[in-house]
């Protein structure tokens, strides 16, 4: 069973960190990714650039509307994800609790539809 761990955090918080703190944060994610991979649980991961780079597209009728900005303005922003393989929700929640994002934001856990 695959679950996506979606990391939400306050982007501005990252900018307020000292370079040393940022390096520490990167190292924590690096170690987490390696632990997932070593356990055979890592399916995929990605880190998103800030919401300032986001563009949202909708097609309404015949018209394609392209809007500057993220889908929703929120206090904390979607900043990255992991897709993990886990036996059940408890196993996925254990991985979420180990994710550095759970400390400086929130990690939403959602099962993926299984594809054929």
């Amino acid at each position, binding site marked *: *069973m695959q679950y996506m761990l979606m990391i939400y955090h306050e982007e501005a918080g990252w900018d307020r960190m000292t370079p040393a703190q940022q390096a520490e944060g990167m190292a924590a994610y690096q170690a987490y990714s390696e632990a997932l991979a070593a356990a055979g649980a890592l399916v995929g991961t990605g880190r998103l650039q800030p919401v300032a780079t986001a563009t949202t597209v909708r097609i309404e009728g015949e018209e394609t509307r392209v809007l500057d900005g993220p889908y929703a303005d929120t206090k904390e922003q979607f900043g990255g994800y992991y897709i993990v393989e886990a036996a059940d*929700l408890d196993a996925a929640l254990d991985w979420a609790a180990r994710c550095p994002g759970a400390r400086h934001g929130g990690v939403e856990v959602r099962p993926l539809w299984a*594809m*054929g």
Partner: protein
Amino acid sequence: MTERPAPGPTEAAAAAAEAAARGGYGKLVAFLAARSGDLAGAEDALADAFAAALAAWPRTGVPDSPEAWLLTAARRRLIDAARARARRSEAATRLRPLLEGLEAAGDGAALPDRRLALMLACAHPALDPALHAPLMLQAVLGLDAAMIGGVFLVSPAAMSKRLTRAKAKIREARVPFAEPEAEALPERLSPVLDAVYAAYAQGWSDPQGADPARRELAGEALFLARLVAGLAPASAEAQGLLALILHTLARRAARRDAQGRYAPLDAQDPACWDGAMIAEAETILRRAAGLRALGRYQLEAALQSAHADRRRFGRDTRAETVALYDALLAMTGSPVVAANRAMAVAELRGAQEGLALLEAAAQDPRLAAYQPAWAARAELLSRLGRRAEAAEACRRAAGLAADPAVRAFLMERLAALEAGG
């Protein structure tokens, strides 16, 4: 004794199905849901199996093991439903382990009791805590959404929708049906105990027993508390919760006098209490203490035990009561506990000191609409001779009372205070 005609095949079948439903419903649901990971599917399959039993048994006779018959029928339905789903969706791979799990379960084999795993799934932290008790009442006891909605003050349709959504999450997000390792048990069991207590409290909130659904609910909660205490004998808090429920249920009938008027604990006749229930509660509480893992429910049960001792044997339990409230307050930080502790202190060290503590506790906004705290304040003020303020607090308490008998009791107190009594 009057002769009764032998029951016809239909009545016999109905009676057998009913007996299997009462005794084994939760066990059957637990077994099927734990195998398939699909609580809603297990309930639906079992409902179909019961319907099939009522149709078949009058013709074929009641089988030797109704439970095994129902299990086989429900399993087949669950497998058929899963196969149909597998054909419809492209997600056949996902359903394969589910089918294998069900097919591996032998027909009619002695049914292992997976109800603890079922209760843990119903009270999983990934599910809305407000739904833990309703889910458990439905899955383990087979109560319907209309009855559950009624006692939790939610419309049957809304309750039904919430339960359906929660069960879909259990299936799709794969909430596990598993019993944790011994060291993780206390933490995982805690929401289960809270849900059982919530069900009990809803049942308790109708002291007159005028609402049959609520009266029944207190009994169902006792059943659940017994079940958890039996399935998790190493959990001190599971034993504590059972002792607490037994202690308070033992006094249920005495909460009203012969005229149906509200009788507070100190006005009740201990002879009307259920002595067997109290004795059982005491035995269980001692067993819990032997497990050396103190918790909230054991402390609350110990408080009830002290109340019972004081009223039944005239033992002075005032110092012990304050000490128990101290421990409970340290553990929960609850403003309600703080208010109760203030009353216990008033008994031990006088109304002045109790009132000061009660006023400090009342700083918490959560107590502003808490009727017993206002009634307590009225009582302490009246003991101190501050009659006008006492009447004011008593009026507030009466205005907040939801139970008509309690309101009538407080109005009587108010009249006495205003008359200078």
